[in-house]
């Protein structure tokens, strides 16, 4: 058969694809991301993410900081879940040092980690709705996050950058009204989730915009190393809290929500269900919270309490050795990789120690960065609107992309 006749007319103009820049300043990129998108009309032909707009160099900075000093830097990594970063880093170092943390510290860390997860997920769901046009849901989510931040502020003194943990314990114990605050929050928060679900679950427009959009298969999830709600949204029941329990997560009764479809809708569902599971964990943790010190009594790594520093020679020496410039604890040479389940997925820390007080090399495995590698494939062939929906469902935090 002969080729199709060329279109009639003065000349065949043909069609060309158009290159669009989405970001680095664009309402859909919550943070400074940059996507170079080739579009054919409104269909995405190719998408190339550009990184490097939020480079902080914290991995290099870590080589010039002592372990405790690095905790403030870990806040800036994924600034929406700084508590989870603090806890993840402290756990990695403690594992390297072999420090045993106290039972109260263990449970408190679980409580704050789950509150951090709630804060991240509720905002993520809200932003997902906002990028599809349902602006009100985002503001409802924001209100809840502010209330969570009030709790964080009362606990650590900071709302966004909490710097709450210390190697071997916490910066301080929680305030007296902490438990009532959390309980009050847990009482009405399920109602907020119900309201969000009522608004979105049976909304035809929302389901149409999310079902079958940005699909990633289970095999691709494994091939890319994608973790967190995105992996679980593709039917992969992978949760570090379950497969490699830390902080005694094996003692809590909770489910790992899994959705089979791998689309934007599944990720939304996973996040909503995870919030309910977090509430379950929180309720158990509050009941199980023991009394006692929050910082391990291990004078080689943790600060002695202030009163004994004033009254006790030994304590004063330890304090001096830990605090003064050029001193501080020195882990034995060696290396460790330890990971925790942060709201976005597996947050891993690879630390190499050469026996000095600074890490010889610190490498972070940020969940968003790995998850983002699957993004170009997820949006190919979709429309520009889908690109925005997928981006929101990945919950990419720019602070995690650039190190």
């Amino acid at each position: 058969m002969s080729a199709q006749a060329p279109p009639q007319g003065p000349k065949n103009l043909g069609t060309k694809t158009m290159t669009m820049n989405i970001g680095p300043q664009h309402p859909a990129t919550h943070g400074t991301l940059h996507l170079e998108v080739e579009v054919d009309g409104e269909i995405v032909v190719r998408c190339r993410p550009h990184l490097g707009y939020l480079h902080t160099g914290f991995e290099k900075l870590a080589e010039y900081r002592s372990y405790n000093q690095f905790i403030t830097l870990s806040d800036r990594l994924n600034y929406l879940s700084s508590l989870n970063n603090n806890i993840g880093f402290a756990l990695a170092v403690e594992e390297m040092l072999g420090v045993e943390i106290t039972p109260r510290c263990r449970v408190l860390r679980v409580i704050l980690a789950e509150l951090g997860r709630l804060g991240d997920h509720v905002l993520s769901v809200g932003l997902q709705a906002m990028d599809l046009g349902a602006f009100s849901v985002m503001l409802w989510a924001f209100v809840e996050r502010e209330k969570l931040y009030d709790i964080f502020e009362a606990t650590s003194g900071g709302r966004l950058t909490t710097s709450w943990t210390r190697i071997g314990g916490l910066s301080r114990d929680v305030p007296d009204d902490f438990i009532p605050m959390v309980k009050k929050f847990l009482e009405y928060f399920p109602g907020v989730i119900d309201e969000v679900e009522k608004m979105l679950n049976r909304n035809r427009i929302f389901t149409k915009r999310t079902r079958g959009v940005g699909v990633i298969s289970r095999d691709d999830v494994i091939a890319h190393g994608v973790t967190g709600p995105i992996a679980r949204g593709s039917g992969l029941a992978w949760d570090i809290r379950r497969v490699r329990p830390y902080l005694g997560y094996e003692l809590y009764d909770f489910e790992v929500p899994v959705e089979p479809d791998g689309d934007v809708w599944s990720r939304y569902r996973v996040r909503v269900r995870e919030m309910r599971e977090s509430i379950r964990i929180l309720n158990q943790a509050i009941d199980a919270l023991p009394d006692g010190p929050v910082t391990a009594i291990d004078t080689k790594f943790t600060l002695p309490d202030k009163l004994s520093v004033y009254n006790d020679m030994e304590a004063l020496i330890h304090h001096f050795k830990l605090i003064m410039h050029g001193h501080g604890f020195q882990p034995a040479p060696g290396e460790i990789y330890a990971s925790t389940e942060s709201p976005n997925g597996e947050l891993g820390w690879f630390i190499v120690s050469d026996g000095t007080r600074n890490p010889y090399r610190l490498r972070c495995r940020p969940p968003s960065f790995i998850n983002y590698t699957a993004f170009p494939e997820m949006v190919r062939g979709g429309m520009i609107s889908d690109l925005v929906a997928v981006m929101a469902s990945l919950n990419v935090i720019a602070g995690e992309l650039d190190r």
Partner: protein
Amino acid sequence: MQVVPVLVWVERKVSAWIQDRVGPNRVGPLGLFQPLADAIKLLFKEDVVPEGTDRFLFILAPAVAFAPAALLATVIPFGQPMMVDGELLPLQVCRGNVGVLLTLALTGFSVYGLAFGGWASNNKYAMLGGLRAGAQMLSYEIAMGLALVSVLMTAGSVDLNVIVLDQTGTWGGFIPKWNALRQPLAFVLFFIAAFAETNRLPFDLPECEAELVGGYHTEYSSMKFSLFFLAEYAAMFASCCLITTLFLGGWSLPGMDVHNHSPFFSLLTVAVFFAKVSVLLFFFIVVRWTLPRFRFDQLMHLGWKTMIPLGLANILFTGAMAQG
């Protein structure tokens, strides 16, 4: 036109109410002067015309977008004709016997403003927004027209006054003979199409701030931007007026004496008219702040594959009923 600032204020307050916020409360009592402050601020903003734009169309576009929406309100009869000095004064700015056709022509015209704005801006987001506006408004105009046809068939006239008078009767003394009840399908179709024509959520794809930054008005600033902004609200108001006139009995209430032309009574009908319009406007605003938006292909799908066939079927049905 004086309605627009009030409308902006209402929109802000209602959205604040939906979103657990306070809304404007600093400028004037209850923040009532906020839209005024906004307008002054916009007037004093630098008016940027970016390089590489088609200057003529760029400047023309906001005016083209605004004018039809403003004109649309003139053909709406908003009250019972008033007897002043022995003469009947119609409460309608522009009285004509082709009212409905004029409204259709004007709504059709407004798409040029958006398309020009999108094209002339020399900006990819704006161009996509303009293209979307063109496609969306053309397709929904058909659905809107089809819904209208069945109303015209019921009333037997294209004069808006006749259409209102046609709806003054009642069934059983209390159920109003409004077209919304006589032609429920046409009412729903027209209502949805009105959302699309005014570019309000869930049909605000030409604007679509999440994807296209500002859509067709991305490059606009100062008074040109505010004209686009005003156009949206004016169009919303005009659409609500039109829906009220066509489907909700206009200024009439069931069982009302249509031959009473005293000034007091006329003013009462004006109040009735604006009360109905306010309810519709409130609905418009609530929808705006609760629903997500469609994707472009889904929008086209809804327009061409659902609303137009339904509109046609409705006409067929109306015709068959009129015959039988």
